[in-house]
């Protein structure tokens, strides 16, 4: 039975992946690119040299952090779609902190900046959490709206109050903040590449989230409230409180992802800094089965996909929006496949079908492998 279960899950996942790849291929065909050549470029292009390999990890860092937050929220029964906005708010808070305290030592300023980023994201997500817990406002809608609001607020600050004075002097007016002081930069892991020590932070936090969710009472409460709110309430767990806590954590991770991206890669707040990580993070979290052990490899995989998509845009002229299409299809494929993965009944049906296929027309219903 167990061997069958693994084969069964593998088949379902393979089918979902094939469906997603086929849908992507049709779209590629429609924009005049060769699907196979494009897929080959996406998957092998970035792995040719050290720079490509490190770029994959550079993309994976914010994806891990965002996806960890999303896993916490999804596991706790609140669907946080607002990572994009929470990242921006985290970046704003981190930038403001770094620029306000330029003379602090590295060992003090950097943690402070990262903490500010996490706090900014957490507070922004907390709005949706409290609205859900207190007023029952649908969190998907409110977080989507908070995304739009954060994006506008971000551009407003970058064009107005937070713009680099040098930009105004030269008159170029690029909407970006001043450069952060060096004390607020994350160190580079490999000289000459953009790979920064945020990667280590992300890996440590991935382990931390595992401990939090599966090895503490507190994490158990969150998961219980998410799995079955009514039962959790009878067990004395305050569901509204757990919703708000999950949302704060989730937003904190997104804000931290923003702060890490800021201090590790760009060193100043620029437009499009979040570059869709907030949405890709959702796909990564789902792809990684909402578990840190799955999220880390999934983030690397999507890092590869993002770098590869950039390459195809440059070489084959496939518009970068293509990656949104792929992500959308992957989400649809994953949530569809879930029914067949977690459903014992569907599994049993497949098993019976499989047996009939193997043993001819008369299956024995009393054989083991029945309903668990």
């Amino acid at each position, binding site marked *: 039975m167990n061997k069958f279960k693994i084969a069964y899950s593998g088949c379902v996942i393979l089918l979902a992946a094939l469906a997603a790849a086929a849908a992507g291929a049709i779209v590629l065909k429609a924009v005049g690119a060769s699907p196979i050549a494009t897929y080959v470029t996406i998957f092998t292009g970035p792995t040719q040299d050290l720079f490509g390999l490190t770029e994959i990890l550079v993309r994976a860092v914010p994806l891990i952090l965002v996806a960890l937050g999303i896993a916490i929220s999804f596991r706790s029964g609140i669907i946080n779609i607002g990572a994009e906005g929470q990242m921006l708010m985290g970046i704003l808070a981190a930038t403001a902190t770094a620029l306000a305290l330029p003379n602090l030592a590295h060992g003090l300023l950097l943690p402070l900046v990262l903490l500010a980023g996490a706090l900014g994201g957490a507070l922004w997500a907390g709005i949706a959490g409290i609205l859900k817990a207190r007023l029952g406002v649908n969190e998907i809608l409110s977080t989507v709206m908070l995304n*739009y*609001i954060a994006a506008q607020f971000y551009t407003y600050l970058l064009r107005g109050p937070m713009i680099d004075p040098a930009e105004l002097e030269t008159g170029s007016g690029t909407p970006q903040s001043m450069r952060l002081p060096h004390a607020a930069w994350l160190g580079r892991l490999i000289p000459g590449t953009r790979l920064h020590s945020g990667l280590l932070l992300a890996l440590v936090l991935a382990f931390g989230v595992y401990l939090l969710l599966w090895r503490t009472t507190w994490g158990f409460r969150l998961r219980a409230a998410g799995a079955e709110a009514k039962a959790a309430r009878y067990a004395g767990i305050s569901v509204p409180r757990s919703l708000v806590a999950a949302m704060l954590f989730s937003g904190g991770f997104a804000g931290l992802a923003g702060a890490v991206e800021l201090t590790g890669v760009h060193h100043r707040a620029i437009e499009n800094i979040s570059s869709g990580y907030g949405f890709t993070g959702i796909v990564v979290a789902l792809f990684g089965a909402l578990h840190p052990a799955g999220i880390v490899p999934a983030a690397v995989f999507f890092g590869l996909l993002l770098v590869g998509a950039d390459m195809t845009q440059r070489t084959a002229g496939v518009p970068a929006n293509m990656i949104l299409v792929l992500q*959308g299809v992957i*989400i649809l494929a994953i949530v569809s496949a879930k029914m067949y993965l977690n459903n014992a009944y569907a599994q049993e049906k497949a098993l019976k079908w499989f047996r009939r296929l193997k043993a001819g027309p008369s299956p024995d219903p009393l054989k083991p492998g029945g309903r668990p």
Partner: protein
Amino acid sequence: MNPGGMLYNILSLGVPFSVALLLASLGEMFNQRAGVFNLGCEGIMCMGAFLAFLPPYFIKTGALAPYGNLIGFAVAIAAGVLLGLLFALVTVTFRADQGIAGIGLQLFGWGLSGTLFRHYVGGVTGVEGLAAWALPGLSRIPFLGGILFNHNPMVYFTFLMVPASWYLLYRTPWGLKVRAVGTAPRAADSMGINVNRVRYQALMLGGAMAGLGGAYLSLCQARMFADDLVAGRGFIAVALVYFGGWSPVGILGGALLFSFAQSLQLAIQVGGIKFPYEFAVMLPYVLVILVLSLARKSRLRGPSQLGIPFNREMRY
């Protein structure tokens, strides 16, 4: 500007602004009444807006040229039905989590329309769009005539859709089935109603209306297409269904509230009161959150099985 003239401007601008929201929202109402929460509305609107834009953009000469807009609307409806079917396949047949699947459909529609737009069109180009058609006689009524009866035909069509939706939902057997599968699918099933089929039908209808709403944006309102043309209107439409208490009249009120807020904000800017442009853009999104917070009681009137997939083989 005198206050009367300003009021006139706000109202006459606001009425056509409400159309895209109203169409998508009425469609979403049918989805939700049938128990399916379709957040992919935004993605369907993006595809509708893009595909409707193509025929008038490409067919500039020839026998079909005068019908470019009409073909555009038809294509948008067809695309909406197809995407509705896709969403039905995922959420009804595969019983996927509707919120997450909706975000998937949104990313898909948004990304696909942007990708195809960049490849086939490239930059921002305008189309002629639908011309205003003043209703003879009615448009001469002082004040009200210009506000209500001097718009493009889609505006009249959409406002007729409000009573039509009401009739369809409350006065036809199909409407009764839709309401039944959204509140008591098990009972409906035992009465011989095919729950999943009704949900499929509702999602196709909702998709068609969302596609048409998107088409209105590109052909009548903006008269061009851009990646971010829809800009969250699909999500606002979903929120309006909550605000409107799942009834066509409530949704009409919500859509008008939003469009008047938008035209009021435009009038304030034109009127010379300066505030940052970004805050003006933010306004409708803030309004959605406020409206959802205030509409909490209306939830009790909503379909009780909203968001819950129906599994015929499951016993509770």
